[in-house]
């Protein structure tokens, strides 16, 4: 059995926190370039060119892309043939977040208790989703999530009879309500099926799929394309100031569900859709 010291996980998470907050992934940069080509509104084009300039400054001067450096969401796929040694896995992830956010001059945006609201001072804890998978590798995906867009996310428990039209209406409702608050142009993560909590996790995970890649399920791919087109007809535009590009991608993940239900989660993300993956 392969042994892996959790110190390696701490080290990777630390570096990924700093990387994700200063260097946007190539898929998102391509999406922004495409958005700029497509945008017709003059103010929309100006916003998009400023967002590109912002990315350049962030990389060159090591200033976070956005001051909301997010709550750290971590997806771990742990191979069942890996023996983790050297400490507790969750604590190792949190230590990586602590080091990344402190040494990387990232904002500490986490409060210990949702109602008492005292800042933890180091951006921990992370939200960790762990899955045990075949193999002897550990995949870590880190997605720091800003709350301007997180606050505009929704879960809809639809009736099966509402079907695909119900899903479309739910996504469009969430996007329109989000409007300028979610720092458009957005990326829209959608989870369909499962249970109440499963669809929300799927929606979050969908945001980590590179923008521009589609589902392998033909009807889901069509749905992604149709929703993107319809979202871009709302007129919200870059910065919410009016225009043709309101979203750069709609990413959908599905899961089996119960005979009585059709859960749909819409996780809205801003143009700073940060996600980095590493395999150990």
């Amino acid at each position, binding site marked *: 059995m392969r042994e892996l010291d959790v110190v390696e996980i701490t080290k990777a998470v630390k570096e990924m926190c700093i990387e994700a907050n200063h260097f946007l992934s190539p898929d998102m940069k391509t999406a922004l370039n495409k958005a700029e080509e497509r945008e017709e509104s003059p103010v929309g084009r100006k916003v998009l060119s400023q967002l590109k300039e912002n990315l350049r400054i962030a990389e060159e001067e090591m200033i976070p*892309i*956005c001051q909301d450096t997010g709550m750290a969401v971590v997806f771990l796929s742990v191979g069942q043939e890996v023996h983790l040694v050297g400490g507790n896995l969750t604590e190792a992830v949190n230590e990586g977040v602590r080091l990344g956010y402190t040494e990387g001059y990232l*904002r500490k945006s986490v409060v210990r208790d949702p109602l008492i609201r005292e800042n933890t001072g180091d951006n921990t804890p992370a939200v960790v989703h762990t899955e045990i998978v075949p193999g002897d590798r550990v995949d870590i995906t880190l997605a720091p999530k800003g709350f*301007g867009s997180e606050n505009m996310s929704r879960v809809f428990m639809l009736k099966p009879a509402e079907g695909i039209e119900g899903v479309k209406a739910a996504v469009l409702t969430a996007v329109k309500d989000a409007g300028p*608050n979610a720092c458009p142009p957005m990326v829209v993560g959608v989870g369909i099926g499962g249970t109440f909590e499963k669809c929300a996790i799927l929606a979050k995970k969908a945001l980590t799929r590179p923008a521009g890649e589609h589902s392998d399920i033909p009807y889901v791919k069509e749905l992604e394309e149709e929703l993107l087109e319809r979202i871009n007809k709302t007129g919200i535009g870059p910065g919410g100031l009016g*225009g043709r590009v309101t979203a750069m991608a709609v990413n959908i993940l599905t899961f089996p569900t119960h005979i009585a239900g059709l859960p749909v989660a819409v996780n809205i993300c801003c143009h*700073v859709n940060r996600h980095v993956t590493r395999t150990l």
Partner: protein
Amino acid sequence: MDKYLKLPLTSEDIASLHAGDSVYLTGVIYTARDAAHKRMSEALSRGEALPMDIKGAAIYYMGPSPARPGRVIGSAGPTTASRMDKYAPALLDLGLQCMIGKGKRSDEVREAIVRNGAVYFAAIGGAGALLSKAIDASEVIAYDDLGTEAIRKLTVKDFPAIVVIDSTGRDLYKESLKEYCVE
């Protein structure tokens, strides 16, 4: 139309601003977000003074990332303004002149803007690195214990913003949506 303006704005400046105008602001602005607004509101209800002279002031809804050594500030873009809607009308009635943030405002805030001849600007959400370049000085003046949520006095030069709600109550978000919606 691009306008270069000095803060505090004069009443003529305010009257000349229309929803959709691009502005570059120079002068002093104060940062405050959720926790600082809650404290200011508690101070007011106890009859205490606010940490800044609110008359003619500009408040930027922003909590920066930490400054690297030798830098003035870290990333410094706007946060969602609607979370401050509960507090903004009282501050506007006390003389708050400009709010800078991102996103929609409530009808109560829009009415208080019109009633007091104020203005709501949006800065570009998610452009914190770019916006930090317009900040020349930053000093915590109150609620230091709140960390990123402390009140900071910023000196800005040509800080880019867009008029979203002007002193007549016109709302750019609503108008531009109508212009570009093709559903």
